[in-house]
């Protein structure tokens, strides 16, 4: 993905279509790819977002399994099958539900390679959805990527375009290590000006995308915030400010080179995520940029993130909770002032 991002000429596709295609293509390409989660198989409707619809019919009930509501059992089954050479994609429906499976993810999936001295590995993908915007309140919208980024042994991805969603999910499934693949619900079905990628499209894990080039300020973000950052950059350009938008795509391990190169160029960086600002992934990114470019920045790295509270229900509170294009634009104007 590059500056071509929002080219109007391209057909309109959605992230959800891209994920569904990636799933399907991965199943077709590799018989070791399997999947499990609540309601995933066709008798249960193909998942609450219907992403796996058709998969169990096409590839069989053995490879595509609905589960009881038992996230520890889901993660354990994925880990165990991966130890035996399979490449399971486990869906933990919403990211807040990873809280009931943290032992499996952190103490086991992330550590078994190391603790076994490399004898075993856990090539699983944990697909999980999240994001505010639907009034779901405090227990259904959290972005918890910082927890996993703090956990050696597991990688963390999130896409903000259909092409990246496809390429990242394919790469995550092929990766020899566990990957958490975070999907944003409110941008799922928003048609974007992209093509549905060909089945050989991959986005390498650990590589950020410079989605828009600019010279005054760098905005580093991912997931829905990257969409908001692009909108803010568009607006800023109209107002004469040149904004570089970097979408991390992989949050851990993140692409220090690309981010530092951009920061070096613009001298002004804003990091934006929907997760709570304090102790979020933005803290690590800011700390590294400040350390690496000490004395070379025009302004201190600015962080925007979710408010320091649970995600609220009421519409005006939910609207105020996370950054959006307006607040990113305000931060852009502030940092160049």
């Amino acid at each position, binding site marked *: 993905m590059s500056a071509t991002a929002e080219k109007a000429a391209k057909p309109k596709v959605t992230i959800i279509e891209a994920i569904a295609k990636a799933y399907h293509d991965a199943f077709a390409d590799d018989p070791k790819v399997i999947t499990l989660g*609540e309601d995933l198989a066709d008798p249960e409707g193909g998942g609450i977002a219907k992403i796996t619809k058709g998969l169990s019919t096409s590839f069989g009930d053995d490879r595509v399994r609905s589960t009881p509501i038992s996230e520890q059992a889901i993660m354990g089954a994925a880990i165990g099958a991966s130890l035996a050479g399979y490449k399971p994609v486990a869906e933990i429906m919403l990211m807040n539900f990873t809280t009931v499976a943290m032992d499996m993810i952190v103490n086991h999936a992330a550590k078994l390679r190391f603790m076994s001295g490399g004898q075993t590995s856990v090539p699983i993908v944990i697909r999980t959805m999240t994001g505010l915007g639907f009034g779901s309140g405090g227990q259904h919208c959290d972005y918890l990527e910082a927890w996993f980024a703090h956990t050696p042994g597991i990688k963390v991805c999130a896409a903000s375009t259909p092409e990246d969603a496809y390429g990242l999910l394919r790469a995550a499934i092929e990766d020899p290590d566990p990957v958490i693949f975070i999907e944003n619900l409110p941008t799922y079905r928003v048609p974007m000006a992209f093509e549905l990628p060909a089945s050989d499209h991959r986005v390498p894990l650990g590589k950020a995308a410079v989605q828009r080039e600019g010279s005054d300020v760098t905005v580093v973000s991912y997931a829905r915030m990257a969409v908001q950052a692009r909108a803010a950059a568009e607006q800023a350009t109209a107002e004469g400010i040149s904004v570089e938008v970097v979408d991390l795509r992989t949050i851990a391990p993140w692409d220090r080179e690309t981010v530092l190169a951009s920061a070096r160029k613009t001298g002004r960086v804003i990091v934006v995520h929907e997760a709570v600002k304090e102790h979020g992934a933005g803290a690590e990114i800011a700390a590294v940029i400040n350390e690496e470019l000490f004395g070379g920045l025009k302004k201190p790295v600015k962080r925007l993130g979710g408010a320091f509270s649970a995600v609220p*229900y009421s519409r005006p509170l939910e609207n105020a909770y996370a950054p959006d294009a307006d607040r990113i634009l305000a931060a852009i104007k502030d940092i160049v002032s």
Partner: protein
Amino acid sequence: MADKQLVADSVVLLEIYKRAALLKANDERARKVILSGQIAMVYYSYRGQEIIPSVMGEVLRDDDTICTIYRGIHDMLGKGFPLRELWAELAGRTTGSCKGKGGPMHLTYPAKGVMVTTGIVGSSAPIANGLAWAAQLDGSDRVSICTFGDGASNIGAVHEAMNLAAVWKLPTIFVCQNNLFAEHTKFEKMTGGQNIAARADGYGIPGVRVDGNDPEAMYSAFAEAVARARAGEGPTLLECMTFRFFGHNFGDDDSYIPKEQKAAAMEADPVPRLRARLIADGVATEAELAAVEAEIEARIDDAVEHALASPWPEPDDLRFDVFAKEIAA
């Protein structure tokens, strides 16, 4: 109040009906209000499951507590959650019980013992044990209820909670509302043993499967569980068989529910069934029940109006209620 009878006589049945009528009307209104666009919210209809909480509300005292779930407005109304505070919360207003911060999945009203509403499957159970422990410590005979679904019976938290309640002999009553579906998943397909009540044996506590749509059976089973708990004899697991008439949540395509099963369940709708019976048995007249129902509609009208006329919260409200002390601006 402590010596509730164990059999529902006609006086009790009438009270149960009144509660059920409120619950049914409130659910109907909620769906209407969403459809009309007056309030946008995530909503989990409990239509079809009204008898269970109507019985519970009849047996329980105000100081008994309940921990319920996203599909729990019936349980809360049964427990006495006031309509104005409910609707204002659904509408996300400052006059809501949670000042608009909680919303439909996190409704709370301690004055009537509605202590926790959780959106996490199974998580009502461990917390209910703590409220039961507090009752023991207080030397009170109050009981602690948790409600959860058939699907939730497969999650670890529920198992841990039942075992702890067993070994601590807690006055916790585990009320599983088995509506035969967990989201789009059929109960039979994902439940080893296909009998949740039978799991109680494994913890050495009573487990009872009861027709949750039959007010008398439900009343006896629940009153007995409450009597045991109040007497210090420990927890009970009740598996209340029921059915939800609509999809998992509002807007859910419910094509996974076999048509005949749904039609049969709606045909046997427990609320009009009880109504008809009360009239047939001469417990109440059509006119009397119609008056009850009209009053319910009026109360709901009032609550919805109150809600929609109430003020919205301000962004600055995010700084409050995170900790006891506000967060710096």
